[in-house]
Every structure is written in C-alpha cells, then in structure tokens.
C-alpha cells in the first residue's frame, strides 16, 4: 500500500460518517424548503376557496346544523337535568317571583285604596308624622317594618352531606358545622316524613327567630332572621339569595373548591349592602 492509498483510507475512515450526516441534513433542509414553498403556493390558491366555503358554511349553519344542535341540546338537557336546573333555578325563580310580587302589589294597592278611609290611631299617628316630616306615609310604614327584621347568620350548606360550604354571621354563634349538620338532618327528616321528594322544608320558626331555607339542587342556603318575618321581607331575602347564587356561586362547578373566606366575603357583600333595604 502506497502512502497515497494509506492517506485515502484514513480520509475515508475519518470523514465518511460526517459526510453522510451532512448529506442527510442537506436533504432534510431541502425537503423542508420545498414543503414551505409548496404550502405558500398552495395557500395562495386554496385560501380564497376555503374562505368562500367557510362563509357559505356559516350562512348555512342555521339550516343545516340547526336541527342537529337542537337535538344535541335536548339530549344534553335530558342527561344533565340537575346542572340545567341549577343554572336556571335562580333566573326562573326570580322571574316567577317578580311576576307574582307585582300581582300582589297590584292587589295591595287596590285593598289600600279601599282602606284609605279607615281611621285607626296608628294610621292617624303615621299620617301626622308624614304631614310634619314631609315623608310619604308608605315609606314610614315600610321603615317601621324594616326596623324589626334583621339577618343574623347565613349558611351555605351542601344538600346531601350537610357539610358547611361557607357562612356569614354578624356575631360569633354556636358551632356552625354542627348547626349545618343538624339543619340538614331536620330538613331530611321532615322531607322524608312526608314522603315528598320534590318538596322542600322552607321555614323553621322559633319564637323571635326564623330560619329561611332556600333549596337548590346540590346545596341550600339557610338565613337566620331575628324579628318580624313577613312576605315583603321574605321576598327581599329571596332576591338577595338569587343574586348571590346567580352572580357568584353559579360561576363555580365544584362548590367545595371555593375557599370559605371567599364565600364569607361575598355573603357579607350581598347581605350587608342590602341590609338597609331589608
């Protein structure tokens, strides 16, 4: 073997791998370049067609997909009744309540009209205060009622387990976890006793206190009220509860994931800002 042969052999041994590697990289880059150029060329031709088809498709959606979407929605509602009811409950409840409340107001107005001529000592006192104070008699009447009703504590409780999800209280009271459990037990007992699964216990009354209970699908809200509990007050409490669930609780899929302090702050916001109107 000559010197030149030896050199060629050495060159081969040293450089063959690198050369093959460099070639493979070169071919890969070329293939990529082709793909990119091809795509650019293709997209120039294809994009307008796709855009046109897309516009047509959007226009046709109501006609072509409408029945399928309706069917899918119907199926979805059928399969997830609880979630749908949960979402609609506050809205529907509010609508129905507003309508009934308006009707009752109309009726009250008509009754008031008829009673206008009646003379009781209290009504004369109120009339005098109204005349001298320049405040409407109806407003005085409302403020008299408002003075005697007060929200003491609000508890948000998981319906099945009776576990406390969150609470707000003006003053520290007895153990709220135990109260939540006992309220749930009482509620379950009463609802079971009358064998009416679709009916809910709505009010617990004891002398000067009332516990207003608003049931939803997976949780319920109990509001402890001291003093007078009348229809006007109940109506306002329900409005606050529906606002709270609609604007806050319904934003979460899993209530157990919300921190207790966050619920307390929200409850405080909804109930204390509305306190004056209660």
């Amino acid at each position, binding site marked *: 073997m000559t010197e030149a042969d030896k050199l060629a052999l050495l060159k081969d041994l040293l450089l063959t791998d690198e050369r093959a590697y460099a070639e493979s990289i070169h071919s890969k880059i070329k293939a990529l370049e082709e793909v990119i150029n091809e795509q650019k060329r293709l997209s120039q031709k294809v994009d307008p067609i796709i855009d046109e088809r897309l516009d047509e498709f959007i226009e046709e959606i109501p006609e072509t997909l409408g029945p399928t979407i309706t069917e899918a929605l119907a199926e979805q509602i059928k399969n997830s009744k609880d979630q749908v009811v949960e979402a609609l409950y506050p809205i529907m409840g509010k609508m129905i309540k507003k309508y009934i409340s308006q009707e009752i107001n109309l009726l009250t107005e008509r009754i008031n009209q008829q009673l206008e001529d009646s003379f009781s000592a209290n009504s004369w006192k109120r009339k005098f205060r109204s005349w001298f104070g320049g405040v409407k008699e109806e407003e005085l009447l409302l403020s008299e009622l408002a003075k005697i009703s007060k929200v003491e504590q609000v508890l948000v409780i*998981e319906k*099945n*387990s*009776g*576990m*406390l999800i969150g609470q707000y209280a003006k003053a520290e009271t007895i*153990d709220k*976890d*135990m109260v939540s*459990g*006992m309220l749930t*037990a009482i509620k*379950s*007992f009463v*609802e*079971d006793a009358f064998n009416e699964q679709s009916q809910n216990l709505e009010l617990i009354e004891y002398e000067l206190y009332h516990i207003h209970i608003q049931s939803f699908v997976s949780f319920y809200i109990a509001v402890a009220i001291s003093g007078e509990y009348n229809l006007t007050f109940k109506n306002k409490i329900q409005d606050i509860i529906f606002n709270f669930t609609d604007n806050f609780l319904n934003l979460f899929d899993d209530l157990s994931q919300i921190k207790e302090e966050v619920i307390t702050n929200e409850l405080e916001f909804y109930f204390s800002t509305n306190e004056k109107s209660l």
Partner: protein
Amino acid sequence: MKKASKKIILLGHFGVGKSSLIRQFVENTFTSDYKVTIGVHILKKEVEVAPDENVSLIIWDLEGYDDIKKTRASYLLGTHGFIYVFDVTRPATFENLKNDIDYLTNQYAKTPLKIVGNKADLVTKTYLKENANMFGVQPNFFTSAKTGTKVDELFTTLAKELVK
C-alpha cells in the same frame, strides 16, 4: 394550616355504645346511664392527621337499628366514612355482621369503613382471640368506650384515611 371537614357516621344496633364511643372521643367522658339516641345527634372534633394538617370530623350519631336497611338513607348521603359498631358481648348485635357489612360495601363501595367490636373491657383478650371467627368478619378495632381503649386510635386512623 390545612384544614378539611369530613362527615362520618356511626351505625349499629341499639345499645352497642355508639354514643358512648363518640362521647369518649369528643369529651373524654363515660357514663353508664343508657340514653337512647332518637333521630340523630351531631358532634364535632378536630383531629391532627399530620404536622400542620387538621381534619374536622363532623360525627353523625344515628339511632340504632336492628336492620341496617331501615337506616334513613338521606342521613347517609355524602358521607365520607362509616364506623360500624357491635357489642362483643351480645351475639344479636353481630349475628348479621357479614350481611350488614356486605350491604354497606355494596351501597357505598368507595366510602372507607371501620368495623368495631365495642365493650371489649367486658371480655378478655384471650376470649376475643379464641372466638375471632365468631363475628363472621374480622373487626378493625376492639374498643372500650368505658376505659377509652383504642377509641382515639379508631377515629384518628379513619381521619387519616379520609385525607389520603
């Protein structure tokens, strides 16, 4: 500090000592006066399950039933753990033990369950060992609400299992 709340329910026949076990655990007291639980009684105790981690146990003490199927189902909803108690001295309270446990494990397959033979202070350890097969199912604990034996251990073990 991490803090979770868990609901646990005590089940079993009349007079097996469910309320006494809870009283011993929560208040460290025992009385031999027997008071029947009517409906349900709820108590609470915080348990340390790990350094810097507590669990608040909301314990539902249900009235005793001879037939577990008669227990009010709505009370059992959303339960995180069960404790089934029987009286080691009264065969009537454990003769259906296997059926009752099967019923619970079928109905609430994912809910941890502890089987407890209570009033262990009234028999000897040898008696319990020799008659281990008598109960039909191997109990997890033999407790005594009177002396407090294994009571804390029972609740703490379950609490630790619930936060796993």
